[in-house]
């Protein structure tokens, strides 16, 4: 077994309708506002939002250092799901850069007046391969992910 099921799953309930949330996920102007961790600003988000279309993302750490990623859209189903490849392509000098292709899947669905959003960042670029491995995904790592997520929520 050489291709393991590395997978990060985050779930959120967002107090807004699905159509509004989906718009934030596909509009480059919106993505520039929210994509990226605390302490970073997005300097570039350009996207050809259609299946097979490419996007380019770049962010700058407030205390210095540029990071970039690119990829393409694999699936876009309005108000349902987006699947895109993701590959880091830039890191500040001296920082490790893992250029391997990974996969982001974002699924949204309505729950009452809210939206349930599930984001999966998997290490496997190929969707079918990711699906076949999904059952092998470990609760130990999920716990680790939950821990990480909860600690982030805490402050």
């Amino acid at each position, binding site marked *: *077994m*050489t*291709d*393991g*099921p*590395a*997978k*990060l799953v*985050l779930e*959120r309930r*967002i*107090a*807004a*309708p699905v159509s*509004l*949330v989906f718009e*934030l*996920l596909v509009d480059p102007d*919106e993505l520039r*506002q*929210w*994509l*990226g*961790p*605390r302490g970073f600003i997005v300097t570039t988000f350009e996207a050809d939002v259609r299946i097979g279309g490419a996007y380019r993302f770049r962010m700058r750490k407030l205390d210095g250092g540029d990071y970039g990623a690119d990829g393409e859209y694999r699936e876009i189903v309005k108000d349902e799901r987006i699947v895109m490849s993701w590959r880091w392509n830039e890191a500040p000098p001296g920082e*490790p850069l*893992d*250029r*391997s292709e990974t996969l982001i899947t974002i699924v949204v669905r309505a729950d009452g007046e809210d*939206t349930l*959003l599930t*984001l999966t*960042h998997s*290490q496997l670029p190929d969707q079918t391969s990711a699906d076949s*491995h999904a059952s*092998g*995904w*470990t609760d*130990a*790592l999920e716990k*680790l*992910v939950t821990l*990480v*997520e909860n600690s*982030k*929520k805490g402050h």
Partner: protein
Amino acid sequence: MVNLQQERLSRTFGALSDPTRRALIARLQRDGALSMSELAAPFAISLPAVMKHLDLLSEAGIVLRTKEGRVVTFRLTPQPLEAAALWLDRHATFWSDSLDRLELRAAAKKRKAKRT
């Protein structure tokens, strides 16, 4: 181009995808070094089956096996697990923070839509 770092990471996640192997790791984490028979004792599965799991963990570089006389001892090598945790942590931070901002943005847009 073969990405060594990626391959190692995949191997670690693969090794972690089995409950018996995770239990073996947890015991080694708690008790330090253990012999094969000590490790196999709590499991309902056969010794050869446990050995197979330990082989896989050892191939993935997660456990180190040493032999003293007739006793084979296993202990954890922290690096692969740390690398896997780091991968998850980095991306979890990225996406968790992003989704925080997405939530705020959605709330702001919803308020705006209501007003107009």
